[in-house]
């Protein structure tokens, strides 16, 4: 009898690990409703497609390991950005932040900036806002060298779908960009998302 309970517990544990955990790690918090879950899934699926393509591109380059040779680091970033931009020549704004996804993000960000924490979130992103010194960025633009990056409000990161390590959300002016941190490439953006 005890053995059967133990086996059942192990099986439940296995199913939770195999099926629930991977879905959960894809985002910071559970979606509020079915519609949000659907939009987040569209987003995470497209993000995963991007990451798969990025990894394929990177695999065609010499592996970048920690090195003292700065030229190697710089060259790797340039070559990766070039290959990705080439592979995504036809990419357009909204390919990943589809209309529905963008609207969902706008709602979350609007409530973040209007809520009690809104003042703090604005304060966080205003520090060294790169839009003071650079023009609006577009899909496949390389984030310019030597320009400081805005800190992404950590409270907002808890509300947006979690990203794989290769990507990050960054604000540039009022736009939310999805940036490939290794290639420094703008993957997609939602313009004027900050109210």
């Amino acid at each position: 009898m005890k053995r059967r309970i133990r086996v059942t517990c192990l099986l439940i544990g296995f199913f939770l690990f195999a099926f629930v955990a991977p879905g959960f790690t894809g985002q910071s918090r559970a979606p509020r409703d079915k519609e949000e879950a659907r939009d987040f899934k569209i987003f995470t699926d497209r993000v995963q497609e991007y990451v798969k393509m990025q990894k394929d591109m990177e695999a065609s380059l010499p592996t970048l390991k920690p090195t003292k040779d700065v030229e190697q680091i710089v060259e790797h970033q340039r070559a990766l950005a070039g290959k990705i931009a080439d592979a995504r020549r036809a990419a357009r704004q909204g390919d990943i932040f589809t209309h529905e996804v963008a609207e969902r993000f706008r709602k979350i960000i609007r409530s973040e900036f209007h809520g009690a924490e809104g003042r703090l979130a604005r304060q966080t992103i205003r520090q060294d806002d790169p839009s003071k010194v650079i023009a609006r960025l577009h899909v496949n633009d390389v984030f310019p060298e030597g320009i400081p990056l805005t800190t992404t409000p950590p409270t907002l990161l808890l509300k947006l779908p979690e990203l794989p390590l290769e990507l990050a959300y960054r604000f540039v002016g009022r736009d939310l960009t999805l940036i490939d941190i290794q290639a420094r490439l703008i993957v997609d953006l939602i313009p004027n998302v900050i109210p």
Partner: protein
Amino acid sequence: MSHMRRSAFVSCVALAAIGLSLCAQELTLPLKPDSVRFAVIGDMGTGEKPQYEVAEQMIVARQKFPFEFVVALGDNLYGGSAPSDYESKFEQPYKLLLDAGVNFYAVLGNHDSPNERFYKPFNMNGQKYYTYKKGNVRFFALDSNYMNPQQLSWLETELQNSGSDWKICYFHHPLYSSGAFHGSSIELRHMLEPLFVKYGVQVVLAGHDHVYERVKPQKGIYYFTEGASGSLRKGNLRKKDLTEAGYDQDRSFMLVEIAGDELYFQTISRKGLTIDSGVIRRVVKISGAASWPALRSGHGDLPDRTAVNAIAF
């Protein structure tokens, strides 16, 4: 060839400066046997003369206080990350330290390219956040530019599993700062402070505001801002209730020695003056769940900028 000549020239100038500065610095650190010894710099990567002068003071300090490694609090390279930036803003100013085998453990600032994590001398091993141990001290190097749930969860696990006596966290954005330009990163504080309190972090180091500040203990934790090792915002410190000691008149760096339950610190200016110093004592709670530090004394060449504070436990 010209590169070699320039290197030799820089080394000669640095050595001459060391000779002149040896008498100026008065180190008060106890140099206890088997202690953990390190230096702290932040917002240093300008490539300008003051950065080199701070580096010279570090070299001078190391003659008497042989620190093993340097904690770099971000903004390691301003204005770009081309090979020439690494050379003029890191390799040249710290050449004598690097040649002597001193390791640097960096974090990313808002001016840093995330690809700096692949630069071997920064010892980030390709990671944006990481941890390492020196003696009885566990260091947690965080990426405060992007404090996402993955990083928070990693930090909690690492803090939980750290059996070290001392836990020191460091990152770029200060949770408490009286700097007028940036000030405290309150959102980040809401995320990190509960973890620091829960798992008994004793000391937190940050940069970003281009001043030096030692904040009054907050919830039993000692916060230092050292964001003036290259850049400086002169007169930018708005001393208030938060400030225990601070300095905004020149560049500076910190020296730290940890021996058993005591952490000694000394902050030195670009001119070799001691602008703050003291000792933090680790007090172990009976439950053993967390250890709380107590600070004793703070003295220096600039008495009006330091404070004496003894906390009874």
